[in-house]
């Protein structure tokens, strides 16, 4: 009704709107005090605890409307078409420098206040048809606690999608000769078991003291038996292998693979525990050949960061046949509850559940219950009879998908409702089937790889999540071979799962016009008080943009990326389809400021203070999953002087 009224009134208001555009905007130029100490953003998650929190107070809810672009830098590393880039880097600010990595494997060091390039290092990726595409989520930074004379006492690391980890001097950008072989560690040399492809170092390693903790990305849809998910502990100075942690049990390695850690890793600097979010085993959607329990798969696993020894593990999806990887670094929080301080972590996940665990023991802070879910109707498959469910804090995703969108259904002459009637839908954890099953939330649903952000002074946690069903169809091997031959993938969403009894097809639930067949919103942001677990607010976030047309704000947007939170009460987030970055009032969830960037900023922003001035920096790289719009823009915003 609101939209309709606006549209009807648009003509009358248009002249006034034009006048508004011609009147120079008056900006709030007043700034808070310049007393903030220099603040770094030296890890993918802002800090080791993956809190994405800044103590900066210069930009406030009162003056954020005056935020202006301070500088932008174009890396030149962008391409579309067959070799399109996916750039989800969070810029780092450390050593008085902004560092970023690119999907063509270059590291750029730029001035934090001007965006002028200091140096560039090229990891010499082949920039071509990589086995997993041209992808990067940035770089890692390490500084020696007791530096000695000479170079490489501060280092920046970048991984390539062909399994090379490069270490360079943070001051000069020169490769560190003492790291691996002339500055390069070939991680593939360690990953020899069932090696089907070179491992992809999309995510920068976590850093704890002098150890790099490294996971990797793989192709877990194409083969039954693939590279087993192994996490590596690496000496930050030398690149030597310190330890390995195998997620797949030895006796299952000929039956399955992956379950790798492809998302961020958080570390408790006090206990030295690293928290690993693990993914689903291969093949993702048929588990008939891997029925034996694998407790470290689709789990949060705590290991000693310096030895790799497991302290505890908490499986969050049993016998995962939905590809609902645990996909973000857990955010560490000290919960103040019943007069006690509980060292905890928040593992919001793809299933849309707010898992909160004691990070020293793995025991739930709020109860995890085993809830019954539907059985599989596929011969050989045995879906778990129960799955872990967290009723409180309130889940981010309901048990059943939203109703069919009437608008999308009418405009497609009933296509949506007919399709929905044909397929299996029994809510959360409906097993994949030959006739097609609704997966809700699907692999693109729930929380994506950025995770949430926490203000540790108030224990306010904000997290963006997606409300997206997808359709999972198993294709019997004979049919798959007949239709797709030896192809590992096809453009219609097919993935071979070679070696297993079924291929697989993933479809988006869209009508003939590309409209979502389910009712909005498609993306939301939620805020929780983590001391009580209470949901404070929940609102749609971002806007869908199709052919340039912006859909109503009440629909929200699918988001990939995460928020950052500041002490002054602001949440900054890009992540949405409309290529806008936003500042949101942490108390109300209201959008206070927004600005268009060149492409969706599919990573969390970095917030830093340099020479008394606070900056918010985004890598606006885009992601083909959201929109075709890609870019190479690194952009920082600040209040005018």
């Amino acid at each position, binding site marked *: 009704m609101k939209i309709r009224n606006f549209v009807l009134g648009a003509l009358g208001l*248009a002249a006034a709107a034009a006048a508004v555009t011609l009147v120079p905007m008056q900006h709030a130029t007043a700034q808070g005090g310049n007393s903030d100490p220099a603040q770094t953003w030296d890890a993918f998650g802002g800090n080791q605890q993956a809190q994405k929190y800044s103590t900066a107070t210069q930009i406030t809810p009162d003056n954020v409307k005056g935020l202006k672009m301070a500088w932008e830098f174009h890396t030149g590393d962008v391409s579309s078409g067959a070799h399109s880039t996916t750039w989800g880097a969070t810029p780092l600010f450390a050593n008085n420098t902004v560092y970023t990595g690119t999907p063509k494997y270059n590291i750029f060091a730029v001035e934090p206040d001007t965006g002028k390039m200091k140096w560039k290092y090229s990891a010499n990726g082949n920039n071509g048809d990589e086995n997993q595409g041209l992808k990067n989520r940035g770089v890692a930074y390490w500084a020696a606690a007791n530096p000695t004379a000479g170079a490489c006492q501060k280092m920046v690391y970048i991984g390539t999608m062909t399994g090379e980890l490069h270490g360079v001097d943070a001051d000069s950008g020169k490769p560190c000769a003492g790291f691996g072989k002339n500055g390069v560690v070939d991680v593939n040399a360690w990953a020899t078991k069932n090696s089907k492809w070179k491992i992809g170092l999309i995510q920068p390693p976590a850093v704890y003291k002098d150890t790099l903790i490294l996971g990797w990305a793989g192709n877990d849809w194409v083969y039954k038996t693939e590279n087993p998910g192994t996490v590596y502990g690496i000496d930050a100075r030398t690149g030597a292998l310190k330890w390995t942690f195998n997620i797949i049990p030895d006796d299952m390695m000929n039956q399955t693979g992956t379950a790798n850690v492809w998302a961020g890793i958080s570390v408790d600097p006090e206990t030295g525990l690293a928290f690993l979010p693990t993914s689903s085993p291969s093949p993702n959607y048929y588990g008939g050949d891997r029925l034996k329990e694998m407790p470290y798969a689709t789990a949060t696993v705590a290991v000693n960061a310096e030895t790799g020894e497991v302290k505890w593990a908490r499986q969050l999806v049993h016998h995962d046949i939905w590809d609902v990887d645990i996909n973000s670094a857990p955010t560490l929080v000290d919960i103040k509850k019943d007069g006690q301080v509980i060292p905890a972590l928040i593992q919001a996940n793809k299933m849309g559940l707010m898992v909160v665990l004691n990070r020293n023991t793995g025991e739930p802070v709020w109860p995890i219950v085993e809830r019954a879910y539907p059985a599989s109707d596929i011969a050989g498959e045995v879906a778990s009879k129960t799955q872990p469910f967290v009723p409180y804090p309130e889940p981010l995703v309901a048990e059943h998908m939203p109703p069919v969108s009437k608008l999308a259904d009418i405009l497609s002459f009933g296509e949506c409702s007919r399709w929905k009637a044909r397929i299996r839908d029994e809510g959360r954890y409906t097993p994949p089937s030959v006739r097609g099953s609704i997966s809700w939330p699907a692999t693109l649903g729930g929380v994506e790889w950025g995770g949430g952000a926490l203000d540790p002074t108030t224990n306010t946690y904000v997290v963006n999540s997606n409300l997206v069903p997808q359709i999972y169809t198993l294709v019997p091997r004979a049919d798959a071979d007949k239709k797709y031959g030896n192809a590992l993938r096809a453009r219609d969403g097919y993935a071979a799962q070679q070696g297993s009894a079924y291929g697989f097809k993933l479809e988006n639930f869209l009508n003939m016009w590309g409209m979502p067949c389910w009712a909005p919103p498609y993306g939301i942001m939620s805020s929780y008080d983590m001391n009580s677990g209470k949901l404070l607010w929940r609102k749609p976030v971002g806007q869908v943009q199709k052919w340039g047309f912006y859909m109503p704000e009440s629909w929200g947007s699918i988001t990939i990326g995460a928020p950052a939170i500041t002490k002054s009460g602001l949440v900054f987030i890009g992540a949405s389809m409309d290529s806008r970055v936003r500042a949101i009032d942490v108390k109300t969830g209201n959008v206070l400021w927004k600005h268009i960037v060149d492409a969706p900023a599919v990573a969390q922003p970095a917030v830093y203070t340099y020479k008394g001035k606070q900056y918010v920096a985004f890598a606006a790289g885009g992601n083909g999953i959201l929109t075709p719009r890609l870019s190479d823009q690194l952009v920082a915003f600040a209040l005018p002087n």
Partner: protein
Amino acid sequence: MTQRHSTRGAWLIMLASLITIAICVYDYYTPETGLIGTGGVITVAVAGALMLMASLTMGLVANRGCFLQGFLVVSILLDIIGSSVAGYFLESPVIMAAQALALIGWLINVIGDAAERSVEIDEVEDED
């Protein structure tokens, strides 16, 4: 049968359509607009071009048939409504403002034409 119709307001519609086309071209090529390379601005630009042709006809061909006059009036109005809705969903206040300008031109033309019809009828009645 042709008769003289009002040309008033046509130049305002022309101006509005030129503004529409210009802003669409700018939006299409400028990343900061958020509309770079989008089909939506192409659609509005095409609508602007059609409006330009219609308004040129309206302004230059005073002696036109009733059918042509009706076609121009209706098609320009539909163009204004469609472009306004598109401008709203493109979140482009300039496109919406241009359509407001076009609407003013359209109203001037329609009212002017009605007034001229009224004078002609009065003259016929006086002759009686």
